[in-house]
């Protein structure tokens, strides 16, 4: 018998009844959209989810975690994360999930989003490109292989923003994953415009870019004038003009389409910054408080959309411009230190002062290697012990760097719809000795800590 539900040969009499029950349950689930979603099966879940982008053979993975640090929301104890197609479908306590889902028992684990490094040169060739080369990208230096990030994954970093190196404007960054499908390893090919220039260097570069804009505007004006002139000539000529006279300048009457003069390629991204084009943002490096004040003058004059990297060490005077940075609502990248006032033993916490002033704080590891990235959580725990808030500390290595890179719609927290880049630790991340045990990228466990290594 062939019906809508298939033949009895496939389902059998009981199976058909069960299937009907399942469909009813699914319909109920749609009705109760506000309540926890009752998954009746993979196909049913696909039907009731808002986005129907689930592939037909989507496999569900479920993590039953002892604790979930969502970063964007509260921390959940004994929570469940449902993952399909490499994305988080749901997270919460007492969530039902499909029966055939692959369950990862992580009841002795703490799950948090994978860490994101906003600025790194990890395993890139030691090549400094000094001068103004804004059109260059790290992609030309980037040759990934399987082993490049093998040790790095143990640290819990799942996303790296690679930056060009050199004084001046050495180029644009790119964002890569530390693992995952090869075709998905590069997340963003051209990211922020990296600026590590003196006030004078930055000013002259931007002035040159401004000149390029004026050059184009000038050419366009000339073209318009010429066109106008040609139109005037095209208008019915006075009767005195003999018709037999051949048109000597056919090009003048029909001017070609406007071809803007070529902008110097190394200045193109700067022109985009000056024109405030979408997707263009600068990451400006400053070494001390005074340098920020100097560079700010130039950035303010040209209204450059920018974030700041405070390349400071333990002893730093950036506290002097915390208020100024806060007024500008700056997004700052800092190294995780407990700071001291220069020439003094007075301690302070820069990250805390910046945040209190109104900045968004991202943290980059103090060392650009496996060790430096491995101790970031430890450094953060010291900052938290010194008085920084726990949620801010977590955000500074996950959500805020994602925001800096313009990827906060996909990365940086455990939320419905975000990419399942997660790390599973054996203790609270801020507890000394906590260790990243499993790393999940794109919904797949890509790294498991070796027990023998300990």
């Amino acid at each position: 018998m062939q019906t809508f539900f298939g033949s009895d040969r496939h389902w059998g009499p009981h199976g058909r009844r069960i299937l009907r029950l399942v469909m009813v349950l699914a319909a109920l689930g749609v009705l109760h959209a506000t309540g926890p979603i009752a998954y009746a099966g993979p196909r049913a879940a696909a039907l009731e989810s808002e986005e129907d982008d689930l592939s037909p053979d989507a496999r569900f993975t479920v993590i039953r975690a002892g604790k979930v640090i969502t970063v964007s929301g509260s921390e959940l104890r004994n929570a469940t994360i449902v993952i399909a197609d490499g994305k988080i479908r749901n997270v919460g306590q007492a969530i039902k999930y499909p029966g055939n889902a692959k369950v990862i028992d992580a009841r002795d684990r703490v799950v948090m989003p994978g860490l994101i490094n906003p600025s790194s040169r990890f395993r890139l060739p030691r090549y400094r490109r000094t001068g103004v080369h804004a059109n260059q990208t790290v992609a030309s230096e980037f040759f990934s292989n399987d082993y490049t990030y093998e040790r790095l994954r143990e640290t819990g970093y799942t996303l790296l923003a690679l930056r060009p190196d050199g004084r001046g404007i050495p180029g644009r960054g790119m964002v890569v994953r530390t693992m995952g499908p090869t075709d998905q390893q590069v997340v963003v090919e051209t990211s922020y415009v990296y600026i590590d220039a003196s006030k004078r260097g930055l000013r002259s570069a931007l002035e040159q870019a401004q000149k390029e804009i004026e050059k184009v505007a000038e050419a366009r004006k000339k073209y318009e004038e010429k066109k106008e002139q040609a139109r005037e000539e095209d208008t019915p000529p006075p009767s005195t003009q003999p018709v037999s006279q051949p048109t000597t300048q056919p090009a003048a009457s029909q001017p070609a389409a406007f071809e803007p003069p070529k902008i110097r390629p190394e200045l193109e991204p700067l022109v985009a910054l000056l024109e405030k084009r979408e997707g263009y943002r600068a990451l400006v490096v400053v070494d001390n408080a005074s340098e920020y004040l100097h560079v700010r003058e130039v950035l303010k004059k040209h209204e450059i959309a920018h974030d700041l990297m405070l390349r400071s060490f333990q002893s730093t005077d950036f506290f002097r411009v915390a208020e100024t940075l806060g007024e500008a609502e700056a997004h700052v990248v800092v190294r995780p230190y407990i700071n001291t006032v220069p020439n003094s033993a007075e301690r302070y916490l820069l990250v805390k002062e910046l945040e209190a002033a109104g900045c968004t704080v991202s943290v980059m590891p103090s060392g650009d290697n496996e060790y430096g990235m491995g101790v970031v959580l430890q450094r953060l725990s010291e900052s938290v012990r010194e008085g920084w808030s726990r949620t801010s500390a977590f955000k500074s290595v996950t959500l805020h760097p994602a925001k800096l890179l313009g990827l906060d719609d996909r990365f940086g927290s455990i939320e419905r719809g975000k990419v399942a880049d997660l790390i599973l630790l054996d203790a609270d991340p801020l507890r000394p000795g906590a260790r990243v045990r499993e790393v999940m990228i794109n919904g797949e466990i890509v790294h498991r800590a070796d027990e023998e290594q300990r």
Partner: protein
Amino acid sequence: MSKINLRCGDRRGTSAPLLGAPWRFVAMFTVLLLSGVLAWAGESDAPPSSAPTSEPTTTSTTSTGTSTAGVEEEPDRFLAVINGDVYTVNGPALRGATILSKNGRIVEIGTDVRLPEECEVIDADGKRVYPGLVAASAGGLHGGGNAADTTNVFSANMQVALAGGITTAIAGNDAAKLTFGTTEDMIVKKGLYTSLDYSRRRPLQRAETRSAFEAARAHLRALDRYEIERATNEDAEKPEPDEDVNRRYLKLIRGSATAVATANSRQDLLDLAALAREFGFRLIVRGAYEGWTVAPQIAGAIAGAIVTPRASVFENQRSVKPSGSSIENAQILRRHGIPVAIVPPTTSITFWGLAGRDLLHLNMEAGFAVRGGMSDADALRAVTIDAARILGIDDHVGSLEIGKDADWIVCDGDLLHYMTQVHYAVVNGRIAYNKQKETLFAHIRPDGAPETTFDDVWPRRLEWPANDDSSAAAEPSRE
């Protein structure tokens, strides 16, 4: 009641002479009463939406209120120092006077100053207010190249120099403010000097300098001749300067630039004075150790000398003429009418000891000039207005006058005394240094602490911790 007081007078000052004469007080009261009645009557007539009469600063004649209505880009920046003894340098010392600055310029000085509402106030009660000191030789306070681009405005050097009272210093060939905490309004003047090399020790350079002056003079004379000739002959050809004519020397002879030369020996000073006389340019001399031996001879020719009273150069044993340095040098040069700027032996900030010899102690160096016979007033001028004049920036800094830049320091005593500390340094109407807030000297004689005498600190006594009962009980007994 208090509102009426504010309307008729200011916050401080004017009411005191009124109280002195009772009949005037009565008259005043009558006027007040009348005006009050009139105001009341006017108010009753006027529509209720009229401007409020209780506004204390509406009738102010001085430009104290915020800028008139319109585009309010940035509010006016006011800073005042009150109750201090103000040493204006170019004018009298004013006891308990007020200086009011607006947007980095001094707008009012006197005992009868009304302060605007939004005004930062430094109370200098019992303290002295001087113009910020000017360092005519300095290094390491500003960045190299273009100081406005490269200076670290939070540097320890700058802070220490401010603690020494310096608010303006030479930076390369520019004069720049010590704008701690801001990069705004740093440069006062660019391109101060043309440097001359005219020493007997370097005969080649000396000859070059001289020939350059001669070439420049020849060209200027040719220009003069051309001007005369043009009156009669229209085809006269304007002379073009030769390649060897240095435009800087043209400027010097025309008087639109200033030359500076380092000269210490008697002979070099005499030679330079002769050169300056011959070509008629404005000359500043650095060093001038032996200036005291030739002061009358060089007096008319030299526009200023940058000297160090404590310079130590031994006399020439083989010479019959007076030679070597003298602590009286500054005083003798000044007495002969040469403006003198005083700089310490080390014209930078040093952190390696030898207190009293670097820019932190510029005021002490002026004190040594007093030791050499200079008057207090002249010594003060030598680190303020005279130093500013030697740098060519005396229209901006160097004294406390209306219209000049709001650069002043608040000291706890006589500036020339070695114990005197700077409590505030104000640069461009902003507090650039506050002793109590910075970690540098806050612990030394802090504000409000009881005065200590010499006997309190000497002979030194070690303070043993008090042997209180609790600690005694905590000790394990030996029995």
